[in-house]
């Protein structure tokens, strides 16, 4: 699977017009031969499939290549960028879960109430929102008009006071923007799912036994509706990760997403490949994790 994806991605990245190092040709002091020599040094003079095989072989050994721009190992560069991205995506992930599930469950319990209608309409709004524009609007409101929160970056120079508070102030807006679509999606899903579970026979049995309503809802219904919700959430993790590209660009968050955008502009193939492969790896791993979790949570599923 991973190999198939890597071949497709590699072919596409190679299809980009213009080659790395061609920019040196514009410098009159660098000769054409010199440029050819550096291309040969990085193996760019060889046919594409040889390049791919070399790259794949090194990749498997843990050598992800050298960034053309900074001449530093890709893995090392990505390791620097991974922390801010994890900070952002993890915060967004937690915000989404904390808001989405109670909203969905409450909506299902009080079906067709004012609360339910409000949240359902709001989730529609969240699903339809262009993420980058939501980011722009928050910047406009909280940074430009009100001046409460910094509009971009991860830290500010010369902070007075605690660094953690500064980081949190920077984190609030991008994390909320990133989580919006998942709050909407997951709360919608958990509402419908909870309603479905409520119709099951074992809920009627539990009620017939004379259990308290809170026990029925919190114990029987909630636990059963969590099973498929957990799967959905797990499957969304890689999407959350790649969605960070847009959020990080809008908020100038110095993580992998913005690094991806920069590398795209500079045609830094090894870096692009590295980030795409991490993404594909995440997809496969979360699929596996979802299967395992599902089997673990639901004893009816056997492999």
């Amino acid at each position: 699977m991973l190999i198939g994806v890597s071949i497709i991605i590699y072919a596409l990245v190679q299809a980009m017009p213009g080659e790395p190092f061609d920019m040196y040709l514009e410098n009159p002091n660098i000769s054409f031969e010199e440029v050819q020599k550096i291309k040969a040094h990085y193996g760019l003079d060889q046919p594409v499939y040889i390049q791919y095989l070399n790259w794949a072989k090194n990749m498997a050994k843990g050598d992800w290549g050298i960034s053309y721009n900074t001449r530093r190992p890709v893995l090392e560069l990505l390791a620097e960028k991974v922390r801010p991205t994890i900070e952002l995506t993890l915060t967004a992930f937690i915000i989404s879960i904390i808001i989405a599930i109670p909203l969905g469950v409450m909506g299902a319990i009080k079906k067709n109430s004012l609360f339910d209608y409000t949240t359902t309409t709001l989730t529609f709004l969240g699903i339809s929102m262009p993420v980058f524009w939501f980011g722009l609007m928050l910047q406009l409101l909280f940074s430009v008009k009100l001046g409460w929160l910094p509009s971009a970056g991860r830290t500010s120079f010369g902070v007075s006071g605690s660094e953690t508070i500064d980081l949190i102030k920077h984190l609030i807006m991008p994390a909320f923007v990133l989580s919006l679509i998942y709050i909407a999606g997951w709360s919608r899903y958990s509402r419908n799912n909870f309603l479905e579970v409520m119709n099951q026979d074992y809920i009627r049995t539990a009620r017939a036994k004379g259990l308290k309503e809170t026990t029925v809802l919190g114990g029987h219904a909630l636990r059963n509706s969590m099973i498929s919700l957990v799967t959905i959430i797990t499957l969304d993790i890689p999407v959350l990760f790649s969605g960070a590209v847009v959020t990080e660009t809008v908020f100038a968050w110095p993580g992998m997403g913005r690094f991806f955008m920069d590398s795209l502009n500079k045609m830094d193939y090894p870096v692009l490949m590295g980030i795409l492969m991490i993404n594909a790896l995440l997809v496969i791993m979360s699929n596996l994790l979802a299967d395992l979790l599902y089997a673990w949570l639901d004893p009816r599923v056997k492999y």
Partner: protein
Amino acid sequence: MAKKRNLLKEKEIMDEDVVIKSPLQQAMIRFRKNKLAILGGTLLLMLILFVCFGPIFSKFDPDDIDLFNILAKPSMAEILGTDELGRDIFTRLMFGGRVSLAIGVSSALFAISLGTLIGAIAGYYGGIIDTALMRFTDLVLTIPSLPLLMILGGIFKPSPALLVFMISILNWMATARLVRSKFLTLRTLDYVKAARAIGCKNGRIIFSHLLPNSLGPIIVTATLTVGRAIISESTLSFLGVGINPPTASWGNMLQSAQSNMTTAPWMAIAPGLMILITVLAINFLGDGLNDAFDPKRNE
């Protein structure tokens, strides 16, 4: 007199009970009862009219640069102000809307056709063909689509047609799975067996028996795909790897909005609001259609 009224009542009851409505008619009735869906449909119709016929009444050209009148505040002449090159935002909104809507609709059509084709073949023939096609679908699903679209946009500096192709080539998988599972259940039904027994060819069974019976869910996904495609296009254009300026699209109108946010916030608001309203209308419509075609879903 009273007798006559009773007769009338009876007739009404007869009408409602006796006339058997086709599934499509039943779906239409359910759809009309859904207020949000009607609202979505109406909004969408108004938007289409706005972008199609609005420009006739505008006295500005969307690409007309006026360097003496840049970043002008909204006024009577320029209802939504001007952008960083002095172009009228209201006019660009209409022309940009044409591009965004056209790309959304055509990508969805293309993606749905491709997905339906692959799903239909996999679901109808089954066996090795099914396994191979579904493996391929899983493979494409594994590719992170947004980063890949960005790379493709960076490579090709896409024309609108190419952008449609790019977006649809990464959006057909859900439809393929849906159509396949629908076909898998349908092909075991008696009327399909009957069609085969009287010697119908495979193509005829697929197109005149199976496909019409899976049309409901296909229409629903198609609607939702239009919304997703519009978001994809605007995101790419915003990042500078979609529709290239000077051609306006709702996404690339926001490209320079961020750097001018302090001085000209009106640049940022209108295009995004248009995207939001459009996609919202489409989603309302899609949800309404879903309830109409699949009445069991929300009970």
